[in-house]
C-alpha cells in the first residue's frame, strides 16, 4: 500500500464539499498501538496510515456518532462521512446498509484491500513492544517490523490474526474509491478453533464456556466495539424487564453473551473486534463464528455480501428445508 497515495486521496476526499470528515487509521500513542484518526482538514491526512497493525473496524464509528440536539430551525449536517475499510470492515458497512443502520448517501467508502492484519496481543507477546512507535509492513510471507531503528522480519503466520487466517473477503465488497490492487483470498483454513470447541463433550464444553464467561468483567467493550450492535438503547441494559441482571457472575454473564450472540446470528461479519477488545481474552469469535457457519450452511445466508439482500432474521423462505425440525 502506497502511503502517499492514501494520504493524497484522503486529503482530496476531506476537501470535498459533501464530506464532513474522514475516519482512517493513525499511529497510536506508543508501540504497536493504532488509533482511529478523525480527519477534518486536508493537512491532517498526513497522519494516516494503513498497515498490518490497523486492526480496528472503523465501521463502528458510523453508528456511534452522537446526534446532539439541533437548535430549532437549523438543518442537520447531511454531508457524508468518509471511511477507510478493509474487506471485513466493508462487510460491516454493507450489513449496516442492508439493515438501514446508515444510508448509502451518508458514507463515502475508501476501500483498502487487506492482506491480513496481526493479532496485536500475540505480536506484543512474541516481540515485546516498546514505548517508541513501531511500523509494520506487509512483505510476502513476512511482516517487516521497524522499531527503535531495528528491522525484524516476522513470519506472517506466527502473528496473523485468527480471523485473517479464515478470511474469505480480503477485498472490500463495497467501496467508492479503491486504493491499491485487489488481494487474493489467502487462506481459507478450517476453523480449527471452532472445531476444537465442537469436538468437546457436552459437559466439557459447558465447563469451557463457564471458565471463560466467569472471567467476564461486563465492561461491554465487545458490544460497544461491535459495528452491528448499534441499537440506541440495548435491551440488555434495560431494567424493566431486566433481561440481564447487573450482577457480574457466571449466570448473568452467560445470559449476556448468549443473548448477544443470538442477536448477531446472520448479522455477524466476523471482523473479530469483540474478541480483540476483550480485556479478559474471552474467545467470543468462536461463539460468533460458530453461529455464522450454522447460518451459512443451514440457510445459505451470508451477511454483508448482498446489498439487495434481506436481513437474515427478517427473512423467510417458503421452501426452507427445515431439516432441524422433527
Amino acid at each position, binding site marked *: 500500500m502506497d502511503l502517499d497515495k492514501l494520504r493524497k486521496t484522503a486529503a482530496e476526499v476531506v476537501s470535498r464539499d459533501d464530506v464532513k470528515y474522514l475516519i482512517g487509521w493513525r499511529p497510536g500513542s506508543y508501540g504497536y498501538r493504532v488509533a482511529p484518526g478523525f480527519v477534518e482538514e486536508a493537512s491532517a491526512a498526513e497522519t494516516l496510515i494503513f498497515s498490518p497493525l490497523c486492526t480496528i473496524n472503523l465501521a463502528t464509528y458510523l453508528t456511534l456518532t452522537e446526534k*446532539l440536539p439541533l437548535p430549532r430551525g*437549523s438543518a*442537520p449536517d447531511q454531508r457524508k462521512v468518509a471511511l477507510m475499510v478493509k474487506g471485513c470492515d466493508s462487510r460491516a458497512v454493507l450489513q449496516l446498509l442492508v439493515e438501514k443502520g446508515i444510508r448509502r448517501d451518508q458514507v463515502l467508502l475508501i476501500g483498502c484491500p487487506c492482506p491480513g492484519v496481526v493479532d496485536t496481543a500475540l505480536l506484543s507477546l512474541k516481540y515485546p513492544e516498546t514505548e517508541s512507535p513501531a511500523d509494520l509492513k506487509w512483505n510476502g510471507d513476512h511482516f517487516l517490523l521497524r522499531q527503535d531503528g531495528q528491522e525484524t522480519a516476522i513470519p506472517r503466520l506466527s502473528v496473523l490474526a485468527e480471523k485473517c487466517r479464515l478470511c474469505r473477503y480480503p477485498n472490500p465488497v463495497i467501496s467508492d474509491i479503491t486504493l491499491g490492487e485487489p488481494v487474493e483470498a489467502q487462506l481459507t483454513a478450517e476453523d480449527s478453533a471452532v472445531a476444537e470447541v465442537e469436538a468437546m463433550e457436552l459437559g466439557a464444553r459447558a465447563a469451557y464456556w463457564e471458565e471463560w464467561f466467569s472471567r467476564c468483567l461486563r465492561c461491554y467493550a465487545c458490544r460497544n466495539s461491535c459495528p452491528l450492535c448499534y441499537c440506541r438503547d440495548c435491551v440488555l441494559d434495560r431494567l424493566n424487564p431486566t433481561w440481564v441482571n447487573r450482577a457480574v457472575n457466571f449466570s448473568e454473564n452467560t445470559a449476556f453473551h448468549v443473548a448477544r450472540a443470538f442477536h448477531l446470528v446472520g448479522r455477524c461479519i466476523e471482523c473479530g473486534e469483540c474478541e480483540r477488545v476483550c480485556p479478559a481474552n474471552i474467545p467470543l469469535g468462536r461463539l460468533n463464528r460458530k453461529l455464522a457457519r450454522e447460518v451459512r450452511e443451514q440457510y445459505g445466508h451470508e451477511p454483508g455480501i448482498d446489498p439487495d439482500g434481506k436481513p437474515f*432474521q*427478517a427473512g*423467510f423462505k417458503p421452501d426452507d428445508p427445515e431439516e432441524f425440525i422433527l
Partner: protein
Amino acid sequence: MTEKPKLGVYICHCGINISATVDVEALTEYALTLPNVKVARHYSYMCSDPGQLLIKNDIKAEGLNRIVVASCSPRMHEPTFRKSIQAAGLNPYFLEMANIREQCSWVHEDRTEATIKAKKLVAAAVAKVRLLEPLEAREVEAERSALIIGAGIAGIQAALDIADAGFKVYLVEKSPSVGGRMAQLDKTFPTLDCSACILTPKMVDSANHPNIELITYAEVEEVKGYIGNFEIKVRKKARYVDFDKCTGCGDCASACRVANRFASEFDEGMGKRSAVYLPFPQAVPAKYTIDPKSCLYLTKGKCGKAPKCAEVCGAGAINFEQTDELVEFKAGAIIVATGFDVFDATGKPEYGYGQYPNVITGLEMERLVSASGPTGGKIKVFNGAEEIVPQEIAFIQCVGSRDKSVGVEYCSRVCCMYTAKQAHLIVDKLPEAKVRVYYMDVRAFGKGFEEFYDRVRREGVRYIRGNPSEIFKRGNKLVIKAEDTLTATPLEDEVDMVVLAVGLKPRSDYRTTMELLRLSQSPDQFFLEAHPKLRPVDTATDGIFLAGCCQGPKDIPDTVAQAKGAASSAMIPLAKGKVTIGAQVATVFEATCRGCGFCVSICPYSAIELVTVNRMGHMIEVARVNEALCKGCGSCSAGCLSDSIQPKSFRDRQILPQIAALGVLR
C-alpha cells in the same frame, strides 16, 4: 394503575369436559388465595346466559375491575366474555382467559396432576390480568365496493349478488372472456341442464349490470391496504383491438393470415383459432383479442404487406400500438374466485395420454360432446391417423385424485359424476357403443347423484371396480389392462377410446395469487379458509374471501352456494360502511426503535412501515404500525432486537409476570 385491582375468577366445568379431569372446587378455593382475588366461582357452562350473568352481577355487586375466565381456548369465547364484561361497564380488554380445557383437561388423564396444572394456569392469568391496560377498539370508514378476482361461475355469481345489493363491483378476469370452466362444459350433472344455457345469461348480466365494472384480459398486480380500504392496481393487458370500436363481427379472424392455426385454449386444444380470436362464440364481452404470442405482426413485426385483420376491419378497431393499461381503484372487500386447473394426465404415463390421440381427458370430452365444440357435438377421435367414431369407450376414474403416487391425496368430488354424465351422453349419442367405467369407489353423495348413477347403469354402462394398470396399443385397438376386483378376474379389454376422469388441481399460477393477497394454503395446496367449519369462505385476512374451486374441488351448486356466501360476507363491511379495528395491536416505542426494518419484513400482514420522524432536528427512520392492518400476532416483537415493538396486552412486562407465576422464572 390508579384503582386497586379487584379480581373475579370464573371457572367453567364445560359440562364434564373440564370438571371430569380438573377438581374445579379445589381450583376455586385456590383462586381465592391468589393476590387481589375477591370472587371465585365455578359453573357448569360459563359461556351460557346464566354463566355470563354470574360475572356481570359480580362486577356490579362486588365492584370487580379485572376478570379471569378459566375455560376453553380464547379463540372461541374471548369475544363472548369481552362483550359480557363490557355490558357490565368494564373495559372489554380487562379480561384474561386461562385455557384449562385444550391445554389441560383434554390432554391429561391424572386428575391430581391436571388440577395442579390448572391452578398454575389460573395463577398465571391472575398475574397478567392485573397488569392489563384499558384498550379501545376503533372504527374506520369502509369503501363500499368489492373486487372479485376471476369471472367463472363463482366470481360472476358473487359479483351479481353484491351488485344487486347496490354496491359497486370490480370483476377482474384474466382471460379475454368471462365464463371460466363452466363455459367449457356441455351438460351439467345430475339434471343434464345445458351448461351454456344456464351460464350465458349470467355472463351477459355480469357485463351489463350497472354496478359491475367488468375488466377482462386483466390481472391484479398489487393489493395494499386492509378490510374496508384495499388499494388495488390492475393491469389491463393490451388486446390490440379497440374495445369500444370492435363490433365482434369476426371478419378479422377469418381474414387472419394464420387463421385457424393455433390450438384453442377454450376447446382444450381440440379446436383451432386464429391469432385474432374470440375464445368462443358466446364470449362476453364479444370483443376480439390479438394473441401477442401467435400474431405474425406482433412476433415478427411483419404480416405480408399489411396485417389483413386491420384491412378488413370495418370499424377500424385493430390497433397494434395499444399498450398495457394500469387501472387503480379502492375496494372494501375482495373475493378470490380464481378456480382450478385439471390434473395433467401426462403425470400418469401408464395411461398413454399424449401418446395416443384417442386417450383424452374428461375436460376434452366436454368439448367433444358439446354442440358448440370443435366437432359440433359429434363424438369422433383420431385413432392413429384415422378418424373414427368410437364404438367401445372406456372411462377411467380417479386420474390424479386419491393417488399418492402423483402427490394428490384428496378426492376431486366431481369426477365420478361427470364421468357418469359423459357416459350417459355417449349412450345417448351412440346407442350402439359399449361403455365401461373403471372405478375405485363411486362417490355419488349429492342431491340426485345416486339416482343419476343408477340411471346410467340401467342404461347399460358397465361399471368395473378396479383401476387399470396400463393402457397400450394392440393392432388398432387400445388395450386396457385391469383387474375386476369384485370377481378377482384379470381383464384385457380392447377399446377405441379412453376418457381419463382427471381430477382438479390448484391453478398453476396459485403462488402469484397467494403472494399477492398473502393467502395461506391447506396441505392440498388449495387456498385455506379461516376455519374449516365455521368460516369456510373467510381467509385469515379480514375482508378477503374465497369462492369456488380455488378453495378446494367442488361442483357447480356448491360453488354457487359458496359464492353467495362469500358475497354476503363481503357485503357486511360494505353495508355497514365501517370496519372495527381490533385494539390488541403492536405499538412501537419510537425512542429506542433503531429503524432497521426487521419488523417490516417479518410482518405477515404488511402492517408496518418505516417513517421518517424529526428527532431533535435529525431526521431518523422509525417503524410505524398501521393499526387497521395489525392483527397483534407478535411476530414483529419476536424479531425486534431492541425490544421496541410489542403488541398491546402482550407486552414483556405483562407476559413475564405471567410466566413467572407458572413457576418457570424465579
